[in-house]
């Protein structure tokens, strides 16, 4: 009861603010009252150089972020991978049952724990046609996750992310080219579908009656449009996008 009123007051504040500098303290305060120590509300954009219009709200200590960057934990980050498969929130200890964790991923979870992360809760942020994001809320090692706060945490995640998204793109309705994903052309999509079926550039060129050089260009351009590095990520993103075109919102 009291918790809902806290969330409602927070949402009104998040809807009102026009700068990250106003959103950040409001978020820090609601996170604390819900019982979370650590949070990272981010668009999934790999690399250290990111466009300004990307959401990146986090209170992770700088030293931890450095470690995560240095190990390139972005590439196969299990939390991010789980977001690609899930539409609703999940608890980090469920990760082994959500994903087939590689040895490297298991090791990275251990390393997070050594750094000081305890249990966490992540809500995927899927907006069709845009780069995926997520909101992770966690406690320090040894502390217990505030289970009773998880429903409220989902609202805080969605409303904060939307406020940050609005502020990041400058309050205008147009997304900047760097975060807005342009749809693939039909030809690019044909290539991506065949990549997904495990075909080589040469196979695809025979099937579509174009040169393998052209296939390569289509695939590279599609990767660029989605802002992804590998062919696997490309297929996941393309699937995700078209999958969601008609999973239309409201009950």
């Amino acid at each position, binding site marked *: 009861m009291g918790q*809902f009123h806290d969330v409602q007051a927070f949402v009104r504040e998040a809807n009102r603010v026009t700068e990250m500098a106003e959103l950040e303290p409001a978020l820090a305060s609601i996170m604390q009252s819900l019982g979370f120590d650590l949070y990272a509300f981010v668009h999934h954009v790999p690399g250290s150089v990111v466009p300004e219009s990307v959401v990146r709200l986090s209170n992770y200590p700088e030293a931890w972020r450095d470690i995560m960057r240095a190990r390139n934990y972005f590439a196969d980050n299990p939390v991010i991978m789980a977001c690609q498969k899930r539409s609703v929130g999940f608890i980090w200890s469920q990760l082994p049952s959500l994903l087939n964790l590689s040895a490297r991923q298991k090791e990275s979870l251990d390393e997070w724990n050594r750094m000081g992360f305890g249990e966490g809760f992540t809500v995927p942020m899927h907006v069709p046609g845009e780069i995926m994001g997520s909101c992770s809320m966690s406690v320090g090692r040894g502390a217990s996750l505030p289970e009773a706060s998880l*429903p409220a945490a989902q*609202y805080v995640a969605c409303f904060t992310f*939307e406020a940050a*998204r609005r502020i990041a793109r400058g309050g205008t309705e147009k997304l900047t080219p760097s975060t807005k994903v342009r749809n693939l052309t039909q030809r690019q999509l044909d290539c991506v579908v065949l990549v997904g079926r495990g075909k080589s550039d040469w196979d695809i060129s025979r099937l579509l009656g174009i040169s393998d050089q052209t296939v390569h260009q289509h695939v590279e351009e599609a990767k660029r449009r989605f802002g992804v590095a590998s062919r696997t990520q490309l297929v996941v993103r393309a699937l995700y996008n078209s999958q969601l075109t008609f*999973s239309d919102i*409201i*009950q």
Partner: protein
Amino acid sequence: MIRIVGAKNREALAPELQSMHRHRKQVFVDFLKWDIPVIDGQYEIDQFDNDDAVYLMVSDPQTRAHLGSVRLLPTQCPHLMSEIFPFLCDGAPPNSEDVWEITRLCTAPKVADPSTVRRHLCTALMEYGLLHGIRRYVSVTHMAFLAQVLAVGWNCEPLGLPQMVNGEEIGAIAIEVSAESLSHFRKSLGLKRPLIALSDQAQAA
């Protein structure tokens, strides 16, 4: 253009409505696997598809096929939130002449550009609300789609904490009707004129 379908013109627009119910079955029952009634194995129709319901609909003028729609119900009549999900509201469910409920927002499964159809419907919701003195809409939404609902760019707030229902997390939200949101949507779609035809107003009411 957006048609308004109400008690008075639903006979005249029967082909569009039939196409809408068929698409709703494909979207909500076949694709999203909701456990809701199906009539004749092909139409999704429930107890709220009654004379109180008003639909905003995009349809193909030639074929009369439905391309996208949303159902509106006055909250002073029985509606989804009062009859099925009252527990999603912190306090009593809405019951006021200036609050209407949005349900069954969908686009036709094979429509070429679903996102534009959806944005036209959102724009029409603001136009309809402003024309009819509606202050806010309320809606039951899956948490999985909340980010997407908020990303439309209107002003929303929760009405109660989300709950787990049949294994899915759902919540009740309110969407504010405002001239500001309307002009924001019109600008982003490059619209100069209203989407709702005033002639339809008279026929549907």
